């Protein structure tokens, strides 16, 4: 078993409000959400990484729910730090994201625009440009990071955020953007949840992320390919775009059901939260004989995601000219879809060990 040490990029001290009677695990307990600055002047960027300290610059439009989207640029992190050093000489208090933060093995990036909140879990080196970064706190399991991303991107996360803003409005209208104080209070699970409940949310969040990656990898490969059905030629890309869309919706529905259970929202509380942005009664201490989650029915097992269309699980009839060449191209594209289907249905890592050095040494 490897010696666990303080993980690079794991942030701040362990934080828990359990002892204070908090009945929920909240974002602040799992992630340290921070907002640091981009350099005052431009740094050279390139469309691809060229040096080992290059990091991906993430602008607001790049950060979407569960995924990074669009064209991204890469810049040298040492160059960013150099610009800050010069800037510091001029008396600024702005601070850059540090190497341990940018190169942390896993992190959550949050877009600054808060309507809707958009969060994605990323593994590679990234520098959020005027956006927020969430680092796993020591001791927090990776699955809670998956669950955090699921809650933040869900209708429940949005509603909790607005409800907290409503109950405790910011004192100043500026700065605009995502309010860390409200984000920190969003619950990701009720304390005492069954381990299987968190597992399922994390697995579904992982499926969502992998599905987005699969769509991004596969759809461009299907461009221009045709399938002949009853004498008509149909676009493969469109057929699979529709198929992915159905899968996204199906996973999101299951995720919403599982999140409702993990958050312990009864029917009335859910309705009040979503429609009136009223914080659920369970936010305060227990007031009823039964908790809302005691009344929730058991959920059926999660079925596997099926990316490949049924008709493509057997040999395909191809439309258009150059039939032989197209068939080879389509076979390759279907192989890619099959490859990603296996990944989407695989289990994500469960734990990210983030114990501190001293703790690990005495364990």
């Amino acid at each position, binding site marked *: 078993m490897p010696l666990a040490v303080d993980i690079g990029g794991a942030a701040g001290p362990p934080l828990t409000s359990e002892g204070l009677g908090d009945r929920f695990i909240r974002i602040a307990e799992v992630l340290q959400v921070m907002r640091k600055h981009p350099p005052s002047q431009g740094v050279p960027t390139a469309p691809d*990484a060229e040096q*080992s300290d290059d990091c991906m610059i993430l602008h607001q439009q790049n950060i979407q729910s569960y995924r990074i989207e669009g064209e991204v640029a890469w810049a040298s992190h040492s160059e960013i730090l150099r610009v800050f050093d010069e800037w510091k000489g001029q008396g600024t208090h702005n601070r850059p994201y540090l190497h341990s933060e940018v190169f942390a093995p*896993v992190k959550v990036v949050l877009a600054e625009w808060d309507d809707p909140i958009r969060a994605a879990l990323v593994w590679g080196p990234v520098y959020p440009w005027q956006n927020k970064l969430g680092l796993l706190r020591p001791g927090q399991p990776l699955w809670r990071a998956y669950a955090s991303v699921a809650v933040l991107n869900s209708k429940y996360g949005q509603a909790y955020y607005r409800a907290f803003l409503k109950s405790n409005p910011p004192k100043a209208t500026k700065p605009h953007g995502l309010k860390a104080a409200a984000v920190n209070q969003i619950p990701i699970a009720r304390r005492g949840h069954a381990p299987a409940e968190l597992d399922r949310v994390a697995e579904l969040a992982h499926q969502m992320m992998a599905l987005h990656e699969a769509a991004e990898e596969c759809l461009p490969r299907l461009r221009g390919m045709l399938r002949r059905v009853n004498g008509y030629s149909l676009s493969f890309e469109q057929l699979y775009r529709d198929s992915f869309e159905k899968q996204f919706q199906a996973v999101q529905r299951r995720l919403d059901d599982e999140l409702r259970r993990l958050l312990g929202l009864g029917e009335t509380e859910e309705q009040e939260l979503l429609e009136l942005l009223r914080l659920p009664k369970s936010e305060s201490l227990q007031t009823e004989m039964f908790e809302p989650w005691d009344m929730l029915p058991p959920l059926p097992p999660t079925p596997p995601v099926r990316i490949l269309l049924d008709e493509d699980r057997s040999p395909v009839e191809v439309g258009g000219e150059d039939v032989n060449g197209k068939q080879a191209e389509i076979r390759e594209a279907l192989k890619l879809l099959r490859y990603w289907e296996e*990944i989407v249905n695989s289990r994500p*890592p469960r734990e*990210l060990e983030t114990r501190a050095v001293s703790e690990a040494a005495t364990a």
Partner: protein
Amino acid sequence: MIILDENLDQHDLVHLLSEWYPGAVKTVTHLAPKSKGTDDPDLLRYLYENRDCIFITKNAYHFWRRVDGHPRYCILCLSVDANEADRQFSLIKSVLQQPPFRRKQSRSGLVIRAVYKEAAWYRRKSDPTEFVIVFETGEISQRSR
């Protein structure tokens, strides 16, 4: 693209990988016929020229903690004794299905060493620590070199 070192240039492994991996699978001798494999000083140049490739070798001794990662490629060292293609294939598959390694953009720049149950990785050989993922549990930890 997967590029296999000469010490993995076995018909069965190439066949298994080609059946599964949705990209080109080549051997270093195929890519550069005059290459002497691991002993070739130009090897890293071949990798540099094939952006986002993953080079797989059994020779961890030559690579692990001896070369820096580079964002144009990924190096995967298999620390396994067995020569069976099946076991090597399942190890490669286990690695490439893990979230940190499954996309080119997140695995490029890494040097990875995989044994049967886990994979460790770093970016720069001077990094004082490395990360480890255990396949069965998915636990990720950081350990000193």
